[in-house]
């Protein structure tokens, strides 16, 4: 090479390049990261793009379900049930899944905080806050006022509870200083257990064994006791064919979502469920009815319920004698059965009597020990009756409390404000809260020691005898939070507290506490570490436990008095749902997803029956002033599933303001039925955010089919000729079957879909406009039943039609049929003509009217496998195509075909009722293929010949 042409750059060229580069630098965005680092030493377990699963525990209610946390690149993106868990069986309810939004709540306390003296909180350092709290504790101890310390906590049946007790004992506080409070507890059932069987515990219900279930206001498919477990058991019975199918009767003034699943609704006057139960008991024990195989105490019990003859019952409750007899006959023949109660809406001033009546029926029919199991409650850290809080508040008001700890107990947000908790808190020297985010009670706290989310910390929980769930962290804490147990240990070190001086780290404490369990599972010569690892992987330890035999305590048998006829006028019936219960405030998914029966989201409401509404001249949307313990304004919703003498209000601050702080004596539970509301029209109207605003004429729901248990066969139209050849589906045709007889409308699938697919939450204003983005919705249709009113749920999602109307009308091929039978939607290609939505007979396509907003840190929850859609494009259910691809890739890596069950969509995974089955329709052995040819199977709007991939199995209903 010659020396002349080795560098042909001229001065001019150099200047050109230099100036262009300079311009480039000038144009580069100022927010670009200054430095980029790659993994030098990649963290263990993290392979980008591959999910890692950890087992943990759901702490949203006291059921204690074990969960599987799916993590991606070090953060949890989804919660699912744990299939190895005997309680949840792999399902997870709406609330449990929304726990993720507690982890990523934008309003989470990100650091400790203390009162700034102006009614606000200012962030502080851990050392500082702990020193101050320790100082206050030291002062209390030195002045001999350790007894003036109170620790209000949720139930902690595990090492956290042990630590709390040890901490207080070390401080010198009496055991009563620790008050355990659970807003979802059923104290009446505990009281009835004490009275009848001498057992201070909650029974466990095995509904899978029951052939008939009667629920006295017990919303066991929604919030009652252990809803996922009860739903699983109940729907297992629903899956039995023919006469063995479990039948459900719902007793109560309001048709709840649980009531919608019932075969019979006994619409009893509010607060008279007890009379119905006792009337039923009397009918069963009436020698004239010749019910076989009654418990030996039948005669003695019979004498207690003598006054409850059918006529008296009908007079008091409005339940006709023949309906009661029909129910009695059914229970007499369909055994074992299970009677459940009382739920929130039946918990009045006689709740314990109702619970006792319910358990007496269970006893005389021989259900106790078969479907109603005592002896499985671990009786570790049981909640105190809520009336104990009245004592606490009185002590606080009297200045007897110097220091109050609030540990995930929110009396101000779950009990009537009339209790006066907030006022009394003003007389407390120092209120310390471990709240992870602001709640009604921690408003009064002057020190916030933010707890880790259960997915960020270690712990253990014993929800059932022989069942220890391990709470395992699935990610590092997002913020400057610290596990409450660790904070207690830190306080113990600062005080110092000799009793707890041995441990400084809660994980060590946890290991110490669970050592016995590990040793027991490892066996005498086993490897302790391996046993721990196995338990952590599985989600916990499972040891055999069997129910205890119980006998009726004759001392508990007292005659039941027959009350007079209740006075005329409205009764306020409260109800809770998975979306609206204690502790659900501020979780966007639970607020956005509409209530299953009213289809209302975001706002509270008051329900009136059509007749009552007509009498008051009220329509849906009219604002009523409701007079109770305090006056509250609520928008009316006209609900056909309600008695004419009731007004129903969902759980929330409005309901609590209406209620007086009145306790049911024997159980110490709140009297939830104490209000006879005064309703007054304000003349104002508001638009309620409702997914369904129409009047829904009943006769038009012709696409819903019913079959009888005796001949379960749905109508299927003959498929018509097609102009185009069927699409080629060489390997797979993904398909789904939805059993409408198992669907309980619990919305777990909807939340799962939101979480899995990054579905945007749009807020109340957009919900009013009908622009929610749910890919899967549960439609509710009012349908006249055999006796009285009924309703049906219809989960509706993209049907992935074989001959899809959306596909040919898209001008740019943004939606097309893929070779696996999916109607793929290409967001990048979509220009937003919305023609596909118009042409979709199921209207399951959602248009992005605006850019979605995922405020930090909610954006950390986004599933990296799914695109976040922008404004102007259509989106819809994809059958969780990312899960299909993951399973297919995994199968290919392992050199095998995709097996049935490899792909589970998010909705199918979450469903506690196991109503949704997903699989490959081309595999004749797959479960979905078998269900597609089930005689109950039909396609919704099948006459349109769209050849949907979803087969609905018709609900079983006796002919009218």
């Amino acid at each position, binding site marked *: 090479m010659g020396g002349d042409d080795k560098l042909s750059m001229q001065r001019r060229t150099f200047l050109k390049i230099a100036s262009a580069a300079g311009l480039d630098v000038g144009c580069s965005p100022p927010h670009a990261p200054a430095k980029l680092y790659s993994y030098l030493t990649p963290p263990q377990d993290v392979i980008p793009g591959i999910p890692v699963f950890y087992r943990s525990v759901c702490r949203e209610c006291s059921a204690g379900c074990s969960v599987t946390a799916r993590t991606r690149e070090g953060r949890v993106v989804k919660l699912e049930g744990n299939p190895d868990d005997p309680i949840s069986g792999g399902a997870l309810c709406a609330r449990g899944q929304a726990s993720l939004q507690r982890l990523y709540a934008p309003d989470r306390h990100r650091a400790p905080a203390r009162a700034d003296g102006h009614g606000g909180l200012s962030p502080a350092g851990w050392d500082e806050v702990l020193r101050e709290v320790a100082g206050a504790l030291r002062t209390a101890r030195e002045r001999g006022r350790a007894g003036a310390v109170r620790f209000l906590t949720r139930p902690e049946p595990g090492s956290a509870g042990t630590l709390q007790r040890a901490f207080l004992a070390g401080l010198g506080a009496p055991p009563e200083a620790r008050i355990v409070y659970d807003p979802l507890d059923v104290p009446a059932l505990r009281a009835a257990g004490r009275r009848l069987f001498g057992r201070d515990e909650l029974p466990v219900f095995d509904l899978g064994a029951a052939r008939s279930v009667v629920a006295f206001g017990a919303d066991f498919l929604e919030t009652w006791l252990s809803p996922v477990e009860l739903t699983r058991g109940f729907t297992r019975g629903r899956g039995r064919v023919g006469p063995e199918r479990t039948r459900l009767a719902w007793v109560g003034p309001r048709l709840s979502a649980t009531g919608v699943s019932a075969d019979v609704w006994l619409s009893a006057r509010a607060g008279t469920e007890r009379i119905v139960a006792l009337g039923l008991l009397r009918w069963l024990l009436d020698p004239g009815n010749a019910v076989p195989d009654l418990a030996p105490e039948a005669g003695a019990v019979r004498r207690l319920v003598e006054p409850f003859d059918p006529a008296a019952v009908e007079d008091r409750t409005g339940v006709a004698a023949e309906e009661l007899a029909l129910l009695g006959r059914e229970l007499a023949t369909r055994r074992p059965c299970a009677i459940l109660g009382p739920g929130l809406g039946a918990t009045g001033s006689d709740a314990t009597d109702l619970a006792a009546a319910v358990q007496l029926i269970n006893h005389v029919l021989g259900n106790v020990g078969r479907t109603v199991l005592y002896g499985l409650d671990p009786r570790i850290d049981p909640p105190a009756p809520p009336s104990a809080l009245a004592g606490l508040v009185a002590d606080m008001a009297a200045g007897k409390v110097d220091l109050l700890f609030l540990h995930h107990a929110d009396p101000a947000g779950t009990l009537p404000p009339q209790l006066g908790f907030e006022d009394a808190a003003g007389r407390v020297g120092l209120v310390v809260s471990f709240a992870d985010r602001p709640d009604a009670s921690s408003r009064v706290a002057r020190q916030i020691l933010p707890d880790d989310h259960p997915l960020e910390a270690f712990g253990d929980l014993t929800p059932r005898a022989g069942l220890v769930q391990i709470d395992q962290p699935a990610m590092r804490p997002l913020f400057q939070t610290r596990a409450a147990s660790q904070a207690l240990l830190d306080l113990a070190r600062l005080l110092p507290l000799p009793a707890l001086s041995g441990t400084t780290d809660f994980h060590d404490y946890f290991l110490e506490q669970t050592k016995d369990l590990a040793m027991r599972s490892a066996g005498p010569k086993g490897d302790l570490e391996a046993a721990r690892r196995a338990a952590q992987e599985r989600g916990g330890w499972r040891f055999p436990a069997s129910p205890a035999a119980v006998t009726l305590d004759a001392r508990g048998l007292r005659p039941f008095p027959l009350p007079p006829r209740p006075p005329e006028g409205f009764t306020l019936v409260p109800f809770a749902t998975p979306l609206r219960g204690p502790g659900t405030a501020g979780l966007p998914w639970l607020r956005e997803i509409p209530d299953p029966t009213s289809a209302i989201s975001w706002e509270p409401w008051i329900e009136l029956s059509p007749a009552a509404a007509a009498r008051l001249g009220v329509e849906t949307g009219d604002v009523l002033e409701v007079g109770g313990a305090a006056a509250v304004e609520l928008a009316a919703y006209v609900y056909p599933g309600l008695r004419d003498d009731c007004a129903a209000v969902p759980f929330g601050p409005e309901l609590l303001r209406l209620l007086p702080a009145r306790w049911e004596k024997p159980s110490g539970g709140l009297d939830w039925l104490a209000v006879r509301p005064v309703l007054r029209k304000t003349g104002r109207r508001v638009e309620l955010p409702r997914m*369904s605003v129409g009047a*829904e004429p009943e006769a038009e729901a012709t696409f819903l089919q019913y079959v009888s248990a005796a001949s379960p066969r749905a109508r299927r139209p003959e498929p018509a000729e097609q102009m185009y050849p069927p699409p080629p589906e060489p390997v797979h045709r993904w398909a789904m079957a939805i059993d409408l007889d198992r669907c309980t409308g619990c919305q777990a699938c909807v939340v799962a879909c939101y979480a899995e697919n990054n579905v945007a939450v749009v807020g109340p204003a957009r919900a009013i406009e009908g*622009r929610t983005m749910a890919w899967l919705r549960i439609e509710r249709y009012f349908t006249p039943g055999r006796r009285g009113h009924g309703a049906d749920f219809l989960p509706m999602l993209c049907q992935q039609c074989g001959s899809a109307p959306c596909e040919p009308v898209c001008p*740019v091929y943004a939606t097309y049929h893929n070779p696996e039978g999916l109607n793929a939607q290409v967001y990048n290609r979509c*220009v937003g003509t919305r*023609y596909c939505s118009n042409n979709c007979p199921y209207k399951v396509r*959602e*248009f992005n009217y605006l850019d979605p907003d995922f405020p930090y840190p909610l954006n950390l929850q986004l599933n990296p496998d799914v695109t976040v859609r922008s*404004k102007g494009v259509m989106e819809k259910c994809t059958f969780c195509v990312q899960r299909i691809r993951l399973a297919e890739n995994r199968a290919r890596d392992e050199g095998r075909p995709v097996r049935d069950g490899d792909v589970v969509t998010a909705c199918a995974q979450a469903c506690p009722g196991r109503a949704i089955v997903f699989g490959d329709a081309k595999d004749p052995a797959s479960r979905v293929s078998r269900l597609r040819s089930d005689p109950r199977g039909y396609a919704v709007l099948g006459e349109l010949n769209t050849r949907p991939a979803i087969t609905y199995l018709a609900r079983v209903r006796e002919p009218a």
Partner: protein
Amino acid sequence: MSAPAEIRKAQALAVAVQSRLGLGHLLLLLLSFAAVLVGAYAWAWQIRHGMVGTGLMRPVAWGVYITNFVFWVGIAHSGTLISAILFLFRARFRTAVYRVAEAMTVFGVMTAGLFPIIHLGRPWFAYWLFPYPNQRHLWVNFRSPLLWDVFAVSTYFIISATFLFVGMVPDAAALRGPAKGWRRTLYSLLSVGWRGTTGEWRHFTRAYLFFAALATPLVISVHSVVSWDFAVAMLPGWHSTLFPPYFVAGAIFSGVAMVVTLLVPLRKALGLEDVIGPRHLDMLGRVILLTSLIVTYAYILEFSLAFWGPPSAERATLIYRATGPTAWQFWIMIAGNSVVPLLLFAPRIRRSPAALLPIAVGVNVGMWLERFVIITASLANDRLPYLRRVYHPRPVEWAITVGAFGWFFFWFLLFVKLLPAISISELKEEAGHAGTPAQMGRSGD
């Protein structure tokens, strides 16, 4: 008077009319431009924030914008009908009105063409609807009626604009003579060197005939294609083979009514009462009456077909239209389209501008509502009752609609000021053939 004198008079008239537009015209022009600005602002807001400002929701995904599209395509129809079809049929009454109708067609299509873009969720990708070669091998879906629309509307625009331009060549040459300054340049350009030789005239008349022959099938096809947007969908209330003829008749109906709406004030403003006489209005009135009867027949047919068979979703949708929460729209539409035009059976009303104008405006309102009812009421009454919801247009949609009217009138007002609103050459021809312009109306056809 002799024929040459008449011809000169026609020439003088054509030149004079534009100077008769004074302050009122300027104010109207400014007003319509202001409306354009309002619409442009609304559209910019919509692009910035998304379709959230509209009243659209599940299940009603199409609303005012598609209504406007169909409405303006319909308006654009009569121009071609009057200039091409009536030309082929040698209906001489068209002479006085066809230029206005043609201009209306071009501006109507220009307005209509905006709406498919405005209604897109991502209008910045509107060009994806054209099948252009690209390295990603992305292609358009020729099965989609929306794509057919793209071709139908763009073809129609090209042909009608060319037709207008070609027809104007001799007139531009006629105006070129007395004009000065930039006007002279404009007319020179438009007249493309026209000198009026016999050879040029021979070519011109042949070309005009061919364009007329070419444009005629488009009158039928464009609105048939537009109707397929609905007829091809499987939505009850849309899915009907009745739609193409029904839409074509409706388009002519609304288009002729729009011609009347524009002509009656225009003849006053331009002082063309002599040229556009009662005879012309009478003829237009007859066309309105005829198409009104066809449209009414289609309404009757639609209902009777739905009530013929067993109860169907279609029947439910039609009942919903007539009795549902938006029934008032349906009944205004019936009044404007089917009932009031029956007055046109009376010749006195047909010949009276004062009576014809409100009837024509009523038809325009009725036809806009017809499209609105077909689109939104069919969607609102969803197959799944759970989702049924009534659509209410929102301010941004109204603002864009107002902007569209502004856009149309802006161009139209500019046109009548700058270009010959009546055909000078054909007027001269008439004059040459028939002696006096006053007689033309009576003996022209």
